[in-house]
Every structure is written in C-alpha cells, then in structure tokens.
C-alpha cells in the first residue's frame, strides 16, 4: 500500500516514534519507549489496533495490515537501537582512555650541554678528536705557551681568577696511558679558555692535529644579562702541513650552517695573541634575515666565534716547526650559541636551573 494511502492516525504515530527514538540513550529509556508503543497490555500501537472495530468493514483489512507493519517496523527499530546502544558501551574491563596517564618522569639534558653535544657531533663527523682537560691550570699552559708572556696587554682581555694556594695540577693524558712529566705542574689559576689543552696536546703528539676541547672556563666577570664568571666553551685546533685560512672558512661555513640552518657566514679581522691572522666569525641574523634589527644591533650580523691561524710563537712553544706546519684555532661559546638558537635573552637563565626553563627543551 502506497504511503499516500497510509491512514493519518498511523502516520502520526510513526512520525512520533521516529522523533522519539534517537533521544533514547540508555537501555532504561529504550524499555520505556518500547512499553509506550508496543507494550503487550497498553501501548500506542496496541491502542490503534483496538480502533479497528470503529472503521467501515471494507477499510479494516488494509488498516490492520498497516498497523501490523508499523508494529513490525517499530520492533525492528527498537532492536537495532538496543544493539547500537550495547555496542557503544565499553567492554567488560574497559577503561576511560581519556583519563590522564601516569607520569613517567623524564629529565632534560641542560640546554648548554645539548648545544655542546650537537657541536661535538658535527666535529666528530669531520674527523675531530674530542678531549676534556683540567679546569685548574698553570700560567704556562694557559698563557705563556699561547704567546701571552707575563704583563702582556692581551691578558687584560681575559681577566683571570687565581687560586689562593697552588694545588696538584692537570692530569690530562692519564687515559691515554702516557703523561709527559713536563705537563704536570701545580695549578695556580682557573683556566680562561680551553686552549690550555691544545698546548698539552701538541706537546704530547706530533702533527697532524684535529681536536676540539669542550669545557667550562672562568673569567673575572660580574654576573649580568650577558656575562657569567663561568661559561662553557668549545675550542678547536687543526694543524697540518698545508692548513690555510680558506680551510678555516670552509670548516666554519659547514659547521655553522649545520648548527643554525641556512645562514651566511663572514670573517672579520680581529686580534688574539695566539693567532695571526685572527678573525671574528659572524653569521647573518636570523631574526631579520640580515635586514637589521635589535638582536643584531642593526648590522644584520651576529658575532659567533673567534678564530685565526695559529701564531708561530705557539708552535715554537710546543716544539712544532712553524716553517713546516700551519693550523687554525677557534673558540665558540655555548651560551652565545644557545641564546641565539633558542631566543634566550638573559644568560643567567642557564645557571638558575629553573625546571620551568629546562623542561621547555624536548627530551
């Protein structure tokens, strides 16, 4: 029987059911709906059937068939709804997966160490040996052998902290199984750079040399936004029969691009007593892409490391022949790198060890 011939009372009931069914979300509500429509004793569909006697005899078969069909449809819909609701229930032993997890505490590597390890890895791949050296040093290894005799004006560039009493000096070399006696001197100062290790290394091994020395260094600086009396350096040294300033350029371009991404690199002449020529190395400012901004003091460039060709006096001090070998040396401050890389504008944050700072770095 076409819908158009559907009895108005039946249609009204069907539409009412269709509207009410989706609102039932619990088994209890579904049972009430079932009772309301197709309950054995009462129920709207049962009531309709009871109207059969009031109709003209000719209409009765069709009406009866329509009511039966409605009843069957409603029962099928209720069954389907019941199955759907059951499927939506969590299974026995199921959990609310949206509850918070149990904390699996995981600490962070210090950002300065994070940067240092990255630098170490870059140089390791370039074939550099990585060494550590003592933090307390003697005047010879920290200054004199690096072309800074006593009273040299350049010593002012590195204001030094001296020990009140000498203590047993650097023991570097123990792990190599050979420690030349000349290296054992009483320590009298806190090293101002890790270059002291370069001297120890050259006095122990013949060229070629390709090393980096990461570590803590100390200067008599007051604590402020951009200075700390202790900071972290990575210094490097390459010595060979034909090492050139062009090699220095190539090394830094490769290293700095890996560290900072797509930056331009430039060298500016400068002065360090232990290198000649000496150069400051700049990278193009990433904040302004070289256009000039507050970060780069409107120059478009950021100073990132000091470097140069090893001074012949340094070679002479360690027993290398400056006529036969050349080399380059450099020093890179981890604080500077980390500040630029991560947008840190106060160096003291690195030494407060605030977990809210440390935990911003990924694992």
């Amino acid at each position, binding site marked *: 029987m076409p819908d158009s011939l559907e009895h108005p009372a039946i249609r009204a009931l069907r539409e009412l059911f269709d509207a009410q069914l989706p609102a039932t979300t619990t088994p209890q509500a579904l049972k009430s709906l079932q009772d309301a429509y197709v309950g054995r004793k009462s129920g709207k569909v049962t009531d309709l059937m009871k109207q059969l006697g009031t109709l003209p005899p000719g209409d009765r078969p069709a009406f009866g068939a329509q009511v039966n069909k409605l009843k069957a449809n409603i029962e099928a819909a209720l069954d389907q709804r019941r199955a759907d609701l059951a499927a939506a229930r969590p299974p026995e032993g199921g959990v609310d997966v949206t509850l918070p997890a149990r904390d699996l505490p995981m*600490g962070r590597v210090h950002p300065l160490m994070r940067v240092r390890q990255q630098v170490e890895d870059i140089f390791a791949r370039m*074939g550099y040996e990585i060494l550590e050296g003592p933090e307390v040093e003697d005047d010879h290894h920290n200054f004199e052998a690096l072309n800074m005799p006593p009273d040299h004006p350049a010593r002012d560039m590195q204001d030094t902290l001296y020990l009140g009493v000498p203590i047993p000096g650097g023991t570097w070399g123990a*792990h190599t199984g050979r420690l030349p006696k000349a290296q054992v001197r009483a320590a009298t100062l806190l090293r101002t750079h890790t270059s002291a290790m370069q001297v120890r290394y050259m006095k122990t091994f013949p060229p070629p040399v390709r090393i980096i020395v990461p570590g803590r260094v100390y200067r008599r600086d007051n604590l402020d936004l951009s200075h700390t009396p202790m900071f972290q350096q990575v210094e490097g040294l390459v010595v060979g029969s034909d090492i050139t300033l062009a090699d220095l350029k190539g090394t830094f371009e490769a290293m700095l691009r890996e560290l900072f991404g797509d930056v331009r690199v430039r060298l500016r*002449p400068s002065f360090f007593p232990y290198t000649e020529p000496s150069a*400051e190395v700049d990278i193009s400012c990433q904040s302004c892409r070289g256009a000039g901004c507050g970060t780069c003091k409107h120059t478009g460039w950021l100073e990132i490391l000091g470097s140069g060709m090893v001074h012949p006096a340094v070679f002479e001090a360690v027993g290398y022949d400056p006529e036969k070998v050349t080399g380059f040396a450099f020093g890179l401050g981890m604080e500077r790198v980390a500040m630029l890389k991560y947008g840190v504008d106060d160096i003291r944050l690195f030494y407060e060890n605030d977990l809210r700072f440390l935990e911003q770095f990924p694992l």
Partner: protein
Amino acid sequence: VRIPVSWLREFVDVPRSPEQLAETMSLRGFAVEGIERAGKEAVIDFEITANRPDCMSIVGMAREIAAAYGLTVKPGPKLAALATANKADISIAIEDADLCPRYVGAVADVTVGPSPPWMQARLNAAGVRPINNVVDVTNYVLLEMGHPMHAFDLATLARAHIRVRTAKPGETLRTLDGQTRQLSSDMLVIADAARPVAVAGVMGGADSEVTDRTTAVVLESAYFNSLSIRRTSRQLGLKTEASMRFERGADPSLPLAAAQRAIALLHMIGAGRGRGRAIDRYPNKTKAPVVRLRRDKIGGLLGSAVPDKEVRRILQSLGFTLRPTPWGWRVAIPTRRVDVMREVDLIEEVARHYGFDRLPVTFPALTAAPKPVDPRITNARRLRATLTAAGFSEAMTFGFMAVAAAAPFAHVGEVIPIANPLSENFAVLRPSVLPGLLDAVAHNRRREQVDVRLFEIGSRFSRTAGERRAVGCAWTGAGNPAHWSGGSRSVDFFDMKAVVARVCETFGAAFHTAAHQEDWLQRGRAAAVLAPDGSRLGLVGQLTPEIADAHGLPAAEPLYVAELDLDTLEQAAPVRLRIEPLPRYPSVTRDISIIVDDTLAAAEVRETIRRAAPPPLVRIAEFDRYQGKGIPDTKVSLALRLVFRSSDRTLTDAEVHDAMGQILEALKNQHGAIQR
C-alpha cells in the same frame, strides 16, 4: 676611539656616509661600537684591538681608511721646523734610557684662557673634557696624532731642570686628580731638580699644573717603555688616555713632530708662542725592523695567492717600505707598528685589506685516521641518558661558592680559596657539586616546583686531591608521582639508592652500601657507596634539616642527595665486557622467613646465607620486612627468596633441601635467627 668625521676629513677624503664607512672598516678589523650625530657632526666609535695603538688617533684611522679605499693620506697642516738644541731655557736628563728611550721638551710662552669653541667642540666630540687652551692643545695632539703630551708650568720646576728617573723609596706625588700617590722604586717619574712632578706617561703632578697664572710651559713629548707604564698604571690603579697608549706601545718617531704640532696649534689659536728651540734626548735611535715576506707563504697561509700588485699596494699604503727580491720582498716596518714583528704579521696586513671575503672556501683534508673520543666524554653522555631517564634534569652551577656554603662539605684546610674573588659568593672553589645543586633545588622550590630532581656532572676541588670529577644528584618531593589512581608517597632512602645503582650500572661497576656518618647527612639515613675492593665511590643519604635550611629549603621536607666520584667509578668499571652463557637448566625457588635482631644489617644476613650456601645459589632477594604485632620488641621478621640453579644439571629436591638446611643452621648459629 671616538672619531669625529669632520676631523677625519682633514686627513682623508672620506668617500661615503659614516654608516658605509663603518661597514667597510669593520671588515678591515675595526668593529664599530656606534655612530653618534650631533648637529652636522657624526662621531664614529671604533673599537681598537689591543695590538693596534697606532690606530688610537685621527691620523691612524685615516691611514687605515685610505688603505681600505685606495686613497692617500693628506699631509696635514704644515709645521714650522723646531730646531733642536742641547739647552733651551731648560735642561733635560734621561737617567734610565730603558724606561724612557726618548724625551722631547720645548718651552713656550703662553696666555692661559679657554680654547676656541671649534677646538672645544672637537675635544668634546672625541670624549675629552676641555680644560684650558694649553692643556686642550696637548689633548688635541694626543687625539689627532695619537701621541700623548704633557705641559708643566715652567715656573714650578726647580732650577728649570727635568730628570727622567725612577722614584726614590718613600717619595710621594699629588697627581692632577688631587690624590697623593705613594711611589715605588720601579716607577718611572719626571722630576725637577728636587722632586717628582709627574708619574711618567700616566699623570702629571698637581703642583706643576698649568693654571691661570702660568706664563710659560714646558711641553713634554716623550716615548716610554710600554711594560713599565703598564706596571705603574696597574700598581697605582690609574688608567689615563696617555697610559692606555703608552702601555700598548707608542711611536718613538713621533715626539718631535708632536711637539711641533702642539706649538703650531698654540700659535694658531693665539694661546702662545714657542721659543723656537727644543731639546730632543734620543740616545739610542729605534731602527725600523726589516722582515722578509715570501710570496709562497702568503698563499700557503691564506689558501690563495695574492697578486704582487695588491701586496705592494696594501703594504705601501699602510706605510711599509718594500724592497723586492726573487722570492718576495724585504719589508721595513714603520716604528708605529708595534704589532708587526714577523712574516705572518705582514701576511695578516695583506689579508686584512685584500679582504677575507675574497679568499676561497676549502675544507682541510684528513691525513690521518681520527682518534677516538675521550672516554670521559662518552661516559658522561651515557650517564646523562641514565639520569634523565630516571627523571633527573641536568643542572649547571658555578665552580665556586661562598665559604659558608662549602664548609660543611669538606675538611677545614681542604677548601681552596680564590685569591682575587669577585664577591663573597665566589670565594672558594667548590669541594662538592652538592651545595650548588641545593641552591638550584631551593630556587625551584621557591617557585612552586614541589617535585624536583636535579643532577650535575662536573669538577670539584680539594687541596690534596686536586681536581676530580663527580656526579651529584638531589631529589625532593614525591618518590613516585601523584596520580588519580592513588599511591603517591614521599621520596625515601631507597629511591635515591636506586639512582646510585643506576649510576654504577652505567659504568658496569659493582657496589655495595654501608652505614656511614657525615655531618651534613641525617644520622641513620646515610650510607657510603663502596666498590667491591672497599674503595669509596661516594655517599648517599638524606640531607640534614640544618643544611636544607641554610640553603633556604623547607627543613621539614625530606631531600635526598648522592655524590659519586666519576674518576673512581671509571677505574672500577670492568676493562673488558665478557658475556656469560645463558642458563640451560631450570631454577628452584625457596622462600624463608626468619626473626632476627632489628639492628642486624640485611647485608650481614645475605653474607651469612651466601657463605653457607653451596655454589648453585644464584639469587637472594628480600621480599618482606616486618616489625609489629606478633613480633617481639627489638626483633624483625625478614622474608627472603632464594633461587638455586646449576649450570650443568637439573638440581634435585634433596640437594636444595640440604642447602636450605645448611643456610638455616648458619643463620641460627650466627644471628640466633628463628624460622617462622
């Protein structure tokens, strides 16, 4: 050095804007601190490196700018010749020619008053305060030529005599700044017939100062030994425009020209007139050194040959004199270039003005196999991985600290003072990494961070042991983190002992703990961490409330710390790693429960069991320890799980039964243990 551009133009035709000039010169080795504008004047502040005292002047920078742009330096104002004489209304004697190789003195009659506005403006722009026309002229010469000068009031000099000598013991001098200076016998002074009138090259004396009443002055234009000036300036704690130039190295060729320029200026501004003669004491003339410059060394160092024409142009424009040879040049060095002594110094000059940017980019070839990384670095990396996985974040603290912070952690006399500390907070080297770590915990604790786990890897120092590396850990707050399912508790000894175990395992080093007493650790909750040979690896325990309080930490909250010596741990690590074959036969597990004195250490019970048991005992594990209802006072119930396993057969019940019998017998005999 502050360079007013208008002044610079008197010596070189500055071709571009100050900004472009700054950019170019920074690529020639003169970083620019800033550019200031005042009216029409622009002042560029160049940073002069310590090796270039010759550039601390207008003329010096003009020379560099000329070289950078291929220009020539203008000759500057013509100077009237100054005849030299042996005596010229004064007498001069150099008594220490090592400390004062040259001394020029000339007398001028003056009318003291203010200098003209243009001169004052230039001095101000360059950062020097105008005083009066005579002093301003000496300062003008200093700024323009880079040569320091001084003017004495002739009337104040006893017998019109100048002696350049070292100070006598006990001599004092009131300097221009009004302070009375104690002089020592290694300081060079300018004296008259009776007493010192100036600290040579540093500052003049107040008594011989030029005043309104002065009518005649002695202009001093000398050259002093740089080391001597540096020492004196440091000893007196007195840095002046003059001392800064002398200590880096002045030009011995300049004194007479500087005096001529000063007299010309006095005349020009109407301040006075020279008497036409000067005394020039210069016993041993400084010779211009000659250095060879080999063509192939230029390319060998820079990585690219530089055309001869360029080499000549650059060096000549900087004032070097070149004599060609088949292999390169012999180069005479002007006396002002104290930084150029060797061939490399000349190569630097060439590279600087040739342009670092024009050099090629190459990569150094490896000619030998790279050596392995220092094992201490690899070990520290693994340790970092271990500790971060245990929930500890890495801290970095300073290597020095206040005396009071270090004191509890080292014996008196072991702490190393710093001779010249910046502040009391940095007075001694740290004897332990823990005090710094405690400060870091306190910092976090004050900022609502309740659960804090931090570690640090670093050096610590003592007088007898020197520098040794250590790892320190600190833990406060929850032992296991709070969760909605419950079960949170505070950190305790055994949490921290687990961290110690992890650290030792990182090195593959075996360890055990023994009760230990240390002033900074809570009694009964402190242990020494020992290697199998009994050597001490470190300490672990709960910090005393007193020390916690001293670091600003809440005394009531438990804070556990551990510090282990990394140098010792590395020694304790096995040299070679050998793998044991996996077990092929099943194991047998037996539990025992005994009652013993509660003072008996678990380690002793284990030791008794191990000694009594036959070899197949492979594992002992305590799984319960109980005191309370049902157990007599001062006793404790201990439950242990023993695992037996043979490597060559399946153990029988009878064998295990016998072993258990022996173990229980031993426990009974040695500790009076009662089986439950």
